């Protein structure tokens, strides 16, 4: 038992921090939200640092690492609200390709991802007001002689992060009449082909642009089908669990910086002849921010480790990160704005960047409510398995 990052993982964090600081720190996110696209240049540098290769298996030129390693890095990128589809690529696409992909799919995408030549995102929502899995409505009609060799995709996906900045998306569609997670199939769809269009949406969080992605009567062959037909639902849920933990890791990093900003303000800003951090109302609020941030970090560490090791409580652990962070880390960002008084409400203070990120992440790929349900169902299942007398 050693519930801490290894020295090597800590070094990764230090290197990442030095690199991002040298590139301007949160200025990168600010440039992105002012309308510049920093993702292309930044991604090349992330690839030079091997960050795009972390979760790619060794045989495809990656490091074969898992969520523990990745979340250690994402904590740092989250600290600076670093633009780019790193969690989508490294936490969703790569593990799905690794687990479900054919040799052909793996050799097409994985080495390119590792080298920084391929970025990926995720296209699941057909309706931005519905939650998963109901939001998945697009049909993928079999068109070939058998039911698994060719499909026709037609429709518009919404809420596709970085839709215009990626080379391919993991797209979820229904291959038969079904509800829930049944009957869902996953596809890898290249975005640069005819019949695929993206349209920018006006998102709450401008550092993470959202897109509509329209597929117009697109014929795809079995090279696009990822994993078993009709049965991609459970892999999608696991992928969402990974994204949940990746997202909490990023917000934990952001919360860590929000604590730093509040501490700095509490030390330097004077009112009534004292630094405001001397007053317990402010001091205790910052202490609570720190407690919530550390608690979220603890949950991320365990969930990442549990996912990497296929622990029986991995699902519960992943769900717990969102149940906790959706409310508590949101409060951390909110309190940071409060601590800064009028300055907290300005564009210049970084608080709004974090707040908007937390708010848009909250219901994306799993709401706190659905994660509560996922958590308690998983808990009840393990408890009833433990005691023969217990009933489910």
């Amino acid at each position, binding site marked *: *038992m*050693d*519930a*801490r*990052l*290894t020295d090597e*993982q800590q070094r990764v964090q230090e290197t990442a921090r030095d690199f991002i600081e040298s590139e301007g720190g949160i200025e990168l996110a600010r440039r992105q939200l002012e309308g510049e696209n920093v993702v292309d240049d930044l991604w090349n540098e992330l690839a030079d640092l091997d960050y795009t290769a972390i979760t790619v298996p060794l045989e495809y030129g990656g490091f074969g690492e898992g969520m*523990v390693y990745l979340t250690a890095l994402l904590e740092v990128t989250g600290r600076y609200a670093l633009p780019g589809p790193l969690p989508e690529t490294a936490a969703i696409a790569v593990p799905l390709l690794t687990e479900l992909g054919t040799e052909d799919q793996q050799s097409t995408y994985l080495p390119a991802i590792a080298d920084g030549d391929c970025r990926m995102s995720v296209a699941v929502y057909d309706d931005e007001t519905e939650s998963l899995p109901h939001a998945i409505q697009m049909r993928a009609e079999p068109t070939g002689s058998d039911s698994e060799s060719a499909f026709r995709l037609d429709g518009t996906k919404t809420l596709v992060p970085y839709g215009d900045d990626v080379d391919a998306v993991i797209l979820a569609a229904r291959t038969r009449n079904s509800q829930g997670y049944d009957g869902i199939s996953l596809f890898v769809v290249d975005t640069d082909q005819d019949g695929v269009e993206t349209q920018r949406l006006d998102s709450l969080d401008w550092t993470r642009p959202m897109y509509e992605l329209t597929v117009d009567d697109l014929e795809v062959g079995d090279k696009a089908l990822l994993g078993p037909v009709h049965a991609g639902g459970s892999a999608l849920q696991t992928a969402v669990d990974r994204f949940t933990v990746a997202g909490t890791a990023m917000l934990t990093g952001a919360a860590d910086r929000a*604590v730093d900003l509040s*501490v700095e303000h*509490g*030390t330097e800003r004077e009112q009534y002849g*004292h*630094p405001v*951090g*001397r007053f*317990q109302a402010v*001091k*205790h609020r*910052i*202490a*609570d921010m*720190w*407690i919530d941030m*550390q*608690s*979220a970090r*603890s*949950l991320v*560490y*365990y969930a*990442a*480790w*549990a996912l990497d*090791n296929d622990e029986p409580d991995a699902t*519960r*652990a992943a*769900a*717990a990160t969102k*149940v*906790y962070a959706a409310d508590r880390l949101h409060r951390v960002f909110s309190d940071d704005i409060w601590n800064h008084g009028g300055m907290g409400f300005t564009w210049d203070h970084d608080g709004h960047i974090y707040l908007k990120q937390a708010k848009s992440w909250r219901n994306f790929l799993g709401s706190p*409510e659905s*994660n*509560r*349900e996922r*958590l*308690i169902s998983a*808990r*009840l299942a393990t*408890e009833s398995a433990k005691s023969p007398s*217990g*009933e489910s």
Partner: protein
Amino acid sequence: MDFSYTEAQESFRHELRDWLEENLPDGWLENPEIPSDREERNAFFKEWQQTLAADNWAGIHWPEAYGGRGASLIEQTIYREEMARVNAPPQINLIGVNLIGPTLIEVGTEEQKERFVPNILSAEEIWCQGYSEPESGSDVASLTTKAEKDGDEWVINGQKIWTSYAHIADWCFLVARTDSSGTKHEGLTAFLVDMDQDGISTEPIHQANDDRTFNQVYFDDAVTTDDLVVGEVDEGWDVVMTLSAFEHGMTSIYSIEQEYLDLLEYCQEETRGGTPLIEDDNVRRQLADLDARIQAAKMTHYRNVSTQMETGTPGPEASMDLVVSDELRKDLLNFAVDIKGPAAALWDNEHEAVDETSGYIRSYGSWIAAGTGDIQRNIIGEQVLGLPKDIKSKTSHRGE
């Protein structure tokens, strides 16, 4: 990063588990019953501690030479988990085992160790801790109970309060003022004081939960001797710090987790309007929130233990534990009372296994004890985050 246990640690767990199955009070696992009469209850706790001590399970973190097992922090974590799992009775001499014994082993004289330490694990002598005073609560260093030298004796006058176990204690670990001329942290001395003397009287405090485990202790020309000074005269604050280091790393998160699991079982068994409680959306939501908070606190404890295994001192996460655990327990029991329905208006429901009502009221005691959340948040704000210190006096204490 690795959250798994080694084979040796797992076999430690099984050794303890087997031992508990053999040695827990008769029928405990089916129906854990504690005598309601105060004296019978104390006798019950004392006997339990002696059973533990007989097989070196009373103070596993103590050195083997003193009847412990020299257990690592991870083994202590396993121990807490397993004790919580069977809802084991508490030991009667908890303060002695957790605080006084380890402090004496570290800074006591050879004579003190020989005289006192063996009787702590065996519960032959029960200990209490005399720190807080009516005018010195959070600001413990401002205490004014006085000890004056008279030949090779010390004469003690003053009053202590919130002293757990004082009514049954044989000895008191007392901090008193021996010099009023310096700052408040100077001039304190730690003493071991025999509670069985005319100069000491105790008066139980009637608590909000109708129990009487805290006391006021009056010292009226009470006496102790030179050889019972711990550490140096006037350097008692160092001893206080040594002792308080043993408080860190203690956590109640495992017993909270067990209470949560009991509550989960209750929600599966109990029905409202013919429907199991567990099928109620609101119940599920609240359970899920508690679950996530408990897991967060537990994983934070693991992180802290891991840090302490390497550095020898707890990481800053340790100061979180009191805040988080106390609030968790209070919220958990608050919820447990709520879901009883209108029966929440009754003090106890005999047919229910979860001791929620009295536990709920009692949780306000642990919420306040060992420094309120405000004090813990000050520690985090100032010592961990480096925020400016509160406006408070460092130099004065109430002298005469």
